[in-house]
């Protein structure tokens, strides 16, 4: 296993640790706003680290596709989290 693949493995382990942080947040936090906050922030960085680790581990990976997917996830995951919080606020779900 080369040094680049070790770096990719470290990136994937760090990304899965961020997924675990999101899971702890979903279980332990008290209401919709906090849960959506934990999920949106942790999984955005987690899936970016996953894509980086995939690109470093697989030698013939296309970095253009990885860049497009990273940009798409950076736009859509926080917007979905924000939509959930906006609907909770409009419905008057209190903290």
């Amino acid at each position, binding site marked *: 296993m080369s040094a680049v693949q070790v770096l990719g493995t470290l990136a994937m382990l760090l990304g899965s640790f961020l997924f675990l942080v999101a899971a702890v947040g*979903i*279980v332990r936090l008290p209401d919709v706003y906090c849960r959506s906050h934990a*999920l949106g922030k942790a999984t955005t960085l987690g899936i970016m680290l996953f894509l980086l680790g995939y690109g470093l581990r697989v030698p013939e990976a296309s970095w253009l596709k990885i860049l497009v997917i990273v940009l*798409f996830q950076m736009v859509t995951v926080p917007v979905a989290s924000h*939509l959930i919080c906006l*609907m909770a606020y409009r419905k008057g779900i209190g903290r």
Partner: protein
Amino acid sequence: MTLANLDLYIVGLLLFVTASVGVWRIATGPTTLDRMVGFDSVAITASGLVLLFSAATSSNDFVEFVFILAALGFLTTVAYFYYLMQLSKDDPNFDPESRP
């Protein structure tokens, strides 16, 4: 289970924990929006599992699946948001906490 790819087993275990927590949140969420949070967790974990499978088999054929899964999760959230907006427009006393 060989020790050479033990790291990928650890990654898969943590992803399994996240997906299980999402399913548990879908089952026992007090409001409908909690269930949407759980569904988002499961959808993002599914794209992570596709990436894990690609890295484990060193294949290059499944990266488009990640894009498709991300788009499906986002469009589901937007569609449900639109549905709840339409419901609230019809019924001003609509309360998502009272829905099963």
